[in-house]
């Protein structure tokens, strides 16, 4: 909500623990913000889709634990 207030745009929430946004879903947004605090539903698929999204001109903002591999969480975007 705070981001929407600052940008004047729309901000929607997607729980990446229980699903992976599709390419058409991602394409509807100008940017994607993600961070890991639990296992992604499908980290490889999500990473690949984010990479495709970036290739198509989208912006991805990666936050804390997205490079974390020391524990059970791994969110590598190939």
């Amino acid at each position, binding site marked *: 909500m*705070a*981001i929407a*207030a*600052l*940008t004047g745009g729309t901000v929607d929430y997607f729980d990446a623990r229980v699903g992976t946004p599709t390419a058409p879903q991602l394409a509807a947004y*100008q*940017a994607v*913000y993600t*961070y890991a605090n639990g296992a992604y539903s499908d980290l490889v698929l999500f*990473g690949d889709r*984010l*990479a495709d999204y*970036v290739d198509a001109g989208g*912006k*991805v*903002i*990666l*936050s*804390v*634990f*997205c*490079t*974390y*591999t*020391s524990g059970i969480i*791994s969110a*590598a*975007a*190939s």
Partner: protein
Amino acid sequence: MTAGYSPVTSPGGANHYSLSAYVGDGTTSLHAGVLAYDCQFRDILVLQGAGVADGHYADGEIALAYGPTGAWCTSTERGRGGGRHRRLAQIIANAASGIPTAPAVLYAPSWTTTRRTGRRSGPTPRAGQLLDARTGTPSAALLATYDGVYTHSGQVYSARVLFGDLLATSWTRATRSCSAPAPCTTISWRASTTRSAGGSAPRGTRP
């Protein structure tokens, strides 16, 4: 995470798990409107590819970095209040708005251009961004190469009327902070035909 998709990587894949404060050295639009924050959960990062760091924590860790395609943000709110949530939201909003840019600012006070060691009141001017307005006046052509100018008076300007006129007519935006003896105010204005009006420093006017 390859360099094409992230400006940073974590060789050990670890996290600090320790609180550290942002030291205020960010220079791009990623930190627009964000002056201070701290964070406990911070990945241990190194730059990769075309990645550029924009801000660090007190322990040297990268606070933010960006690349040609996106921005990395390591700061995260911890739910303890203190405005963290809003500052993180501002950073995300800034990152989502476009590729970070660093405005070119000319620092032109009528005072020493040597910054005091350890001062953290603002970005440290780089070579080519300093002009001692006690000994010279920037030309309109020079001013046109910058996005903004910062000036304050400490001693007599070389040519205060000329400087004021150039600021008033050549600039689309400028900021003035005056320490003495004129009123200590910070103002900004857009293109204006207002001329300097005496005193010890260039005069501007609000929009």
